[in-house]
């Protein structure tokens, strides 16, 4: 046996081996992966830019034809009058009114800002007063002076929604009673 013969055999074996490898070879996925990586980076970048948005739900009072008084299930116990709480934001502070009458206004703070904490405290007081029968009441009307900016409106709605401990106060706000 010559060295040449040995080399020729080895060459044949290597060629055979490579052929077998090519037959079972995988698809070239590298270009596909490049595309996918690019799309992921693009999507991730656009997701990061999203701003946390939220909702504040309000309604407006609706007029409808009354269907007559509802039948009182317990004639002995007269229905409690609705609280009909109205909060008005004026140039000098908040004014609160309910079916019982108008409450003393909550003036602005010395620094010129509105006293949202004072408003929340007052609403907690109203909600917890047993004379008001407001334990289950969640509705309130909202009104404001024509020039009050929207930011103040939203902050007032925040102050009306819940107290500092997260207990619901008056989240069902109806805008501008009397405009419809």
């Amino acid at each position, binding site marked *: 046996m010559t060295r040449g013969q040995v080399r020729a055999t080895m060459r044949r*074996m290597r060629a055979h081996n490579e052929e077998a490898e090519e037959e079972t070879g995988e698809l070239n996925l590298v270009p596909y992966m490049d595309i996918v990586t690019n799309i992921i980076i693009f999507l991730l970048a656009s997701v990061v830019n999203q701003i946390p948005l939220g909702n504040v739900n309000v309604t407006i009072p609706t007029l409808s034809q009354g269907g007559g008084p509802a039948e009182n299930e317990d004639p002995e116990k007269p229905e409690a009058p609705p609280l009909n709480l109205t909060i008005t934001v004026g140039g000098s502070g908040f004014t609160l009114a309910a079916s019982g009458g108008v409450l003393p206004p909550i003036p602005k703070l010395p620094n010129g800002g509105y006293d949202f904490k004072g408003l929340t405290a007052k609403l907690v007081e109203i909600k917890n007063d047993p004379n008001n029968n407001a334990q289950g009441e969640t509705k309130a009307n909202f009104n404001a002076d024509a020039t009050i900016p*929207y930011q103040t409106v939203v902050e007032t*709605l925040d102050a009306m*929604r819940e107290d500092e401990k997260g207990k619901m106060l008056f989240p069902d706000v109806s805008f*501008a009673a009397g405009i419809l």
Partner: protein
Amino acid sequence: MAAESISRLQGKKAIRSFARKLAEPETIKDLNITPMMDMMTIILVFLLKSFSSETATIKFDESLKVPSSVTQLKVKAALGVTITKNVILVEGDAVAPVNNGKVDPTVKRDGENGYYITPLVDILEKHARKEKKVAEMTGSKFDAELMVVADHGTPYRLITEILYSCGQAGYQNYRLLVLRSRE
């Protein structure tokens, strides 16, 4: 040629050792990227899904900065009415111009002190009719909901005028879009 020839045994030995070398598990030539690609495809599908479910595609700029609030309610899709410093838009289409926080009195039915913004009511009535028809056909209920996106400096008077006009077109429930802040 004596130097060229080797014994048969030596030749066989050399071939066998070469065959063994070929059969051996080779050193890693290139990485197997298939599992990584599986993973990436899953991430891609997930991101595309979360991307498409994001409903609010509003362009915020100098004339539209929404107020911040501590509300925890998430945004839900509804017909969008946008109030910027310069214009009122319904679903991205300009409806009426705004100047210094006031709508031009010529587009109001009752003049300067009126609440009824005629073009806004007209376009919302069209949308309401369409939504009612869809609700009727699908057997669902027309929820009369609007998403109101307003600039933080919009005066309350303009807000009430717009909400009044929306009410005239049959929309009574509003979702005010705000920026959620932790405090």
